[in-house]
């Protein structure tokens, strides 16, 4: 019953997302396509974090680190392509066929290293150690003087190229990101229903029992940590292309915090929830000042977070399972 309701909901959402550019064109606000591109990109990262927090019970507070790895991979390759210099003897490139797969591979690698070390800890220590790794990467990127240090760098040549597509076109890039989002979301729904998904549920519920039934929970956790890292790395690579600007801010711990808020706001362990959470969070962030301004509340409009904060608190207090719980009520 719930399954069909889910499917119907997802199909409606997908149709809306596909028709959006056309809709924005008819109301002559095509710039909104760019806003929604951002939503779709961060939804990928939120879904990947939900695999960790919601499904495995691993509260990772350093997820933005992988956004940074993805973004800087794209950025550094573009930088060397523009400068016509080399990086460790390799030339830079703007080709999306190289930089996006490379961003995925590198974020997987970084996730493997960070995961291998931090998964030796549990509970609060895991939260703290992932936070530390996130901040380490933040300061690493700040220290990269060649790539703009804490000012970041522009992608002067524009977005990555892809044969047959023009990613510099707003609408085409939106569909490019939407495709990645749909693929990752589909992959994630399949993952949580797979046998590995059952192992993850078992880890969340009673981790200590796993070795007695022959499962190495450390490897299972590392596996999902790497998969989640890949999701965030992909989102980072797309985000760099979107803004054509990369700075260490994308790895800052407040970014990790935003991702966590989005997952909790939307409903942990639901996959759909974090997507809805991302949309609500980023849309409020973007439009709340405007709404308050048009209501004549100029002071609040300037300090819009004053309104934003209580909204989040009320959501967490009163909406069980977050936005997901509001939509699919019958879940007890």
């Amino acid at each position, binding site marked *: 019953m719930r399954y069909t309701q889910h499917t119907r909901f997802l199909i409606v959402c997908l149709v809306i997302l596909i028709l959006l550019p056309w809709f924005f064109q008819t109301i002559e606000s095509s710039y909104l396509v760019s806003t929604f591109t951002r939503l779709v990109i961060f939804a990928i990262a939120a879904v990947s974090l939900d695999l960790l927090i919601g499904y495995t019970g691993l509260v990772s507070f350093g997820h933005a680190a992988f956004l940074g790895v993805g973004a800087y991979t794209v950025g550094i390759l573009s930088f060397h392509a523009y400068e016509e210099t080399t990086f460790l003897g390799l030339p830079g490139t703007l080709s999306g066929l190289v930089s996006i797969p490379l961003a995925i591979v590198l974020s997987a690698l970084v996730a493997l290293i960070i995961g291998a070390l931090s998964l030796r800890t549990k509970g609060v220590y895991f939260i703290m150690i992932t936070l530390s790794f996130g901040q380490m990467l933040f300061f690493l990127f700040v220290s990269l003087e060649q790539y703009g240090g804490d000012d970041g760098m522009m992608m002067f040549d524009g977005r990555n190229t892809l044969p047959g597509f023009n990613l510099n076109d707003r609408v085409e890039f939106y569909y490019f990101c939407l495709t990645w989002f749909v693929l990752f979301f589909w992959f994630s729904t399949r993952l949580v229903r797979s046998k590995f998904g059952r192992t993850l549920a078992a880890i969340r519920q009673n981790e200590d029992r796993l070795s*007695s*039934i022959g499962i190495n929970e450390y490897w299972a956790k590392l596996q999902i940590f790497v998969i989640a890292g890949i999701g965030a790395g992909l989102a980072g690579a797309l985000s760099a292309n979107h803004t054509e600007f990369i700075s260490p801010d994308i790895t800052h711990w407040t970014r990790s915090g935003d991702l966590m808020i989005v997952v909790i706001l939307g409903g942990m362990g639901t996959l759909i929830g974090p997507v809805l959470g991302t949309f609500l969070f980023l849309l409020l962030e973007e439009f709340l000042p405007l709404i308050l301004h048009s209501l004549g509340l100029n002071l609040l409009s300037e300090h819009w977070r004053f309104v934003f904060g209580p909204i989040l608190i009320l959501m967490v207090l009163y909406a069980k399972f977050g936005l997901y719980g509001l939509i699919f009520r019958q879940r007890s």
Partner: protein
Amino acid sequence: MLEIQNLCKSFGALKASDDLSLSVDQGTIHALIGPNGAGKTTLISQLSGYMQPNSGMITFDGQDLLTVPAHKRPHAGLVRSFQITSVFPELTVLDNICLVLQSMRGHAHSIIRLAASDYFEQNEAQEILTRVGLNDKAYSLTGNLAHGQKRQVEIAMALATKPKLLLLDEPMAGMGTEESLQIMDLLNVLRKSVTMLLVEHDMDVVFSLADKISVLVYGRVVASDTPENIRNNQDVQEAYLGGNELKTKAEIC
């Protein structure tokens, strides 16, 4: 089949295993009795790899067990059940068993295989549930079961690994009479194919099932013999069964 030599494990000043030696022969039900705090569960934990001994040797099937990590021991045929029920409460009973089956088949990390569509696995799980008498609860959430039924899930999970040696830590604790009898029957059937090391407080169960009984007191094996000889053993009677003070203690447990 299982050989324990000079095992020592202490927690501070407390010696939970004190130069403990024991051997379990293939095809037997070997019961382990002793008053509370004698180190029975600690021994099971060391055998299953949840704790590392301070010194001593454990060999299983001719293999040095102490070098085998805990999660590989079930694959080698050595499986434990828990005295304090330890199941996966938000999974259905069937899923609890399927989880074990997928692990034994090496599918625990598989993203390609969907959990709900492996009917072969589900049939096998259903069969195991029938054996422990839980077939009508297959689709209940394990957390919603009565305590005795959770104990049955615990045993079903251990069985699903198809063990060679089953370490049962008070399998009947907290079960109703009917379920207890069913599990006793089950253990009687299993004895043909599975070797068991059984920790149990219920002396009726112990004396009717066991081929051999070892008595553990303060981390030491004070006697290891057939039920008949244990019953007549003067030391054991004084130390455990017969001693008035200790007898009341054993009854309380």
